[in-house]
């Protein structure tokens, strides 16, 4: 065998970074042997069903449990009064507020948790729940956030009526939560005063829900004799949850074990701590038996973890060539009845200030006003970092609005404003330092791949032809994402910094166990982390076992959300592996009787420079590390743990292009083509990345084309089952074309950035831009999502384009 062939064979054996290694986690799932929350059954377990409010706003005058308690199989009924003695009827939220675990004297949103019925099985529990009699006195509800701060608006949160602030600065109205600002308002205002061109548009990111296929749930098991609490839970962040549970319950954190198990998708829905979990835990402490609580789909869509509901206003100021001089973005954020928004302590409006996007904008000001309404709390980031979709939607739509006003091409307006490749690292006027990027080449690659000029010509011909049954739209989105929180100096949740961790243990024969603080919900961590270690340590990925999600086993970490896993834990993994490699090198030098400086690394071994026959493979070193034949003073073993605090977030980016054909007569939008180029730096497993892009684009399609949680004026939910809430099937879902460029992250040990959320963040404005572009020649500057056939038909009808 030639030397290169031999090297390649050794390399291939590792299945390390850059290879599309098939996923290790598939084996159990394709056999139906996953272990999801509802698969867990413990001896003596009771089932909890939640009694929920039919009203959006009402006083509770009384609760009668008698009929429920008489129901066969029912063991207990818990209300707020039962949680009071343990002081768990209210709980702190991730947004700095408090939330009722079970409604305390009043309900503030429809389907709010009022009681939990515990019974021998789920049928009996729901029978019992139907028999709990609650006496309500209905109150007027606020549904429109624009009316929340009216002087005569009903007060939603009497419990904090007199509080001057709830976590984030002064409040100006009992229904006001906070006002958050970023940037230099005076400079931005000045830019607008002197600008040649200004544009302004109002645009809504409607209330939506991540709706993973598995709903939320838990099995809580308190062991009275030892005082040890075990909670199996659908959680994207088991360690943070354990900390919250310790704070809430007073149980020592060392006596709480949170186990993530297999999770049937999260997309942000499984980050927070929900009342159902807390009641189940209290119920287990009180009854001494395990309690299972599983949401129904309707409970899931109505009460846990909605996203968005940002009512935005975008303004850009530019010169007549389209160079942007100023940006003013604001949003009225509808947080529902409790501020349970998932946010880092210092960022009540999340990372909204990424709203300058991929563009060099010298003056910018952003502001978010958050208010209470009589809707469910939650405020999670649906497949994005906190509030990033909201921000990127605004900027990517406003770029089109500005292009339209100037009569400029939508690709050209972007070219003129991109941060240039030679400007990185680039600090935006709202304070983020974009780590690396190559925006121009990415866009040009996409335009060339789709034949952009030809598409615009075809569009012009269609526009000129009154007989064309369709309107053609071309959407572009050239987004920059912000993912991978920490750094700890910037980001914490409830005081815990957002670092992450990896512990690696190597056994004598070269088998590896790696344990991490993250939690896969389908992202393929067991495979990709193993590939990182394989490349770093020269041991085959096949022999590397990755474990996460069990707080008793893995080191502390903040979990998997906001595309943190590769930027933070992937880095932790590489750093832990490098600690081991350093020690291995010392052992190799000792065995080969040379100094460390005489050694070089080659795929899976250290060899002596200039004398390649003298080498020690990693496998050999693993065994030696467990013997007495070690350098003087060295301990046995090859173990390491790293807690990684990233120096900055990572800023993946992409250029997407979408072509749609809108049926003038039915309003149906057909996606003809969707081309997605992503740049996430180093690509660890291309197959997994591509799968993440497909999934994220499909969720973007869902949001842009059909998802919205509607309410009537009394706060009644008008669509909380899968009958009404749009989840695309294989029939509607477009075909995705993917592409990539590679711009390394300069501060990440592997050069990698996060990726799984880019397609969601970048995809939504791309669809909207395409649909609106179809109407652009008719004077339409904006249409709010979702672009369902009915809504698009209304636009066609208003414009009269559907007249034959």
């Amino acid at each position, binding site marked *: 065998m030639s030397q290169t062939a031999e090297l390649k064979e050794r390399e291939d054996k590792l299945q390390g970074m850059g290879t599309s290694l098939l996923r290790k986690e598939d084996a159990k799932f394709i056999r139906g042997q996953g272990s*999801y929350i509802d698969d867990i059954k413990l001896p003596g377990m009771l089932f909890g069903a939640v009694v929920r409010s039919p009203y959006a706003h009402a006083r509770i005058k009384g609760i009668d449990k008698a009929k429920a308690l008489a129901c066969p199989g029912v063991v207990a009924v818990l209300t707020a009064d039962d949680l009071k003695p343990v002081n768990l009827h209210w709980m702190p939220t991730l947004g700095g507020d408090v939330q009722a675990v079970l409604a305390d004297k009043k309900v503030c949103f429809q389907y709010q948790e009022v009681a939990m019925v515990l019974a021998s099985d789920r049928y009996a529990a729901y029978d019992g729940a139907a028999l709990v009699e609650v006496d309500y006195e209905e109150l007027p509800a606020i549904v429109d956030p624009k009316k929340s701060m009216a002087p005569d608006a009903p007060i939603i949160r009497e419990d904090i009526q007199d509080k001057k602030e709830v976590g984030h600065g002064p409040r100006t109205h009992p229904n006001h939560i906070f006002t958050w600002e970023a940037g230099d308002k005076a400079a931005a205002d000045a830019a607008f005063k002197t600008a040649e061109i200004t544009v302004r548009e109002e645009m809504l990111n409607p209330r939506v829900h991540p709706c993973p296929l598995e709903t939320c749930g838990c099995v809580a098991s308190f062991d009275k004799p030892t005082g040890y609490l075990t909670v199996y839970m659908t959680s994207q962040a088991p360690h943070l949850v354990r900390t919250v549970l310790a704070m809430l319950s007073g149980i020592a954190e060392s006596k709480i074990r949170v186990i993530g198990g297999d999770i049937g998708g999260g997309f942000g829905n499984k980050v927070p701590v929900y009342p159902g979990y807390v009641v189940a835990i209290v119920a287990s402490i009180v009854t001494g038996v395990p309690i299972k609580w599983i949401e129904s789909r309707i409970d899931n869509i109505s009460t846990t973890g909605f996203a968005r509901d940002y009512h935005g206003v975008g303004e850009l100021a530019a010169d007549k060539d389209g160079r942007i001089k100023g940006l003013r973005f604001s949003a009225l954020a509808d947080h529902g009845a409790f501020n349970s928004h998932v946010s880092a302590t210092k960022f009540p409006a999340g990372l909204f200030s990424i709203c300058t996007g991929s563009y060099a904008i010298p003056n910018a000001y952003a502001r978010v006003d958050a208010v209470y309404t009589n809707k469910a709390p939650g405020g999670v980031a649906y497949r994005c970092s906190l509030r990033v979709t909201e921000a990127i939607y605004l900027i990517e739509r406003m770029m089109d609005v500005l292009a339209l006003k100037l009569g400029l091409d939508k690709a050209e307006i972007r070219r003129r404003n991109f941060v240039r490749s030679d400007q990185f690292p680039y600090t935006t006027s709202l304070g983020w330092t974009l780590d690396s990027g190559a925006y121009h080449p990415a866009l040009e690659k996409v335009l060339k791949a789709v034949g952009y000029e030809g598409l615009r010509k075809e569009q012009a011909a269609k526009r000129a032809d009154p007989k064309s049954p369709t309107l053609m739209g071309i959407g572009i989105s050239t987004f920059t994402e912000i993912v991978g929180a920490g750094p700890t100096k910037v980001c914490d949740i409830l005081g815990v910094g957002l670092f992450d961790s990896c512990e690696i243990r190597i056994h004598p024969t070269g088998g590896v166990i790696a344990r991490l603080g993250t939690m896969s919900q389908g992202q393929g961590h067991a495979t990709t982390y193993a590939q990182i270690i394989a490349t770093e340590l020269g041991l085959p990925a096949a022999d590397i076992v990755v474990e996460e999600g069990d707080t008793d086993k893995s080191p502390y970490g903040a979990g998997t959300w906001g595309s943190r896993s590769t930027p933070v834990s992937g880095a932790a993994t590489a750093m832990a592996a490098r600690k081991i490699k350093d020690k291995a090198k010392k052992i190799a030098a000792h065995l080969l009787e040379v100094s460390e400086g005489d050694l070089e690394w080659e795929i899976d071994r250290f060899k002596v420079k200039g004398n390649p026959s003298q080498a020690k493979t990693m496998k050999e070193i693993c065994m030696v590390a467990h013997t007495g034949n070690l350098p003087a003073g060295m301990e046995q073993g090859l173990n390491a743990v790293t807690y990684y605090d990233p120096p900055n977030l990572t800023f993946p980016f992409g250029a997407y292009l979408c072509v749609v054909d809108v049926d003038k007569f039915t309003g149906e939008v057909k996606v003809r083509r969707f081309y997605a180029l992503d740049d996430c730096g180093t690509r660890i497993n291309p197959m*997994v990345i591509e799968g993440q892009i*497909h999934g994220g684009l499909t969720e973007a399609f869902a949001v842009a084309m059909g998802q919205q949680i509607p309410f009537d004026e009394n706060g009644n939910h008008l669509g909380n089952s899968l009958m009404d809430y749009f989840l695309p099937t294989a029939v509607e879902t477009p075909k995705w074309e993917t592409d990539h460029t590679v711009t390394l992250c300069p501060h990440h040990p592997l050069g990698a950035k996060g990726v799984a959320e880019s397609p969601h963040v970048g995809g939504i404005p791309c669809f909207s831009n395409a649909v609106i572009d179809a109407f652009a020649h008719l004077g339409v500057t904006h249409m709010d999502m979702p672009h369902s056939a009915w809504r698009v038909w209304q636009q066609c009808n208003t414009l009269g384009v559907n007249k034959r």
Partner: protein
Amino acid sequence: MATAKKVSFKLNGKPVEVTVEPRELLIHSLRERLAHTGPHIGCETSHCGACTVDLNEMSVKACTVLTVQCEGAEITTIEGLEQGGALHALQQAFHEEHGLQCGYCTPGMITRAYRLLKENPNPSEQDIRSGISGNLCRCTGYQNIVKAVQSAAKKLAAAG
């Protein structure tokens, strides 16, 4: 409450018997009484297909079938597709084409595709897309699922 009733059927080729209330759904009997947790629950309203099983050679949503309707039936679940230690071509193809991520839809999806390929051994992409449209997946965007079904169809055809 109505009295419980004995129901016998064949589950993955083996005779089983359960005693259930008339209102009990098949998905709950399979998961809670018969320890077959492969089929999942995603909605309980017949929309998501996570609970799909094969009942008398038809794909059904086990959340919308009463167990008492299954007297004498032959039911196949994901657990019954592996034969003699060998994965079904669909199981293998889902793995090879990266047709799953969180895996929650996978048992229902594969069980549905199993029946689809029996009904139409040589489906077009459009046939596959509409054939699995009763099964929702939130993770994959379906593209690799379609590929997996195509590749399994080819392998099954080649194997005769």
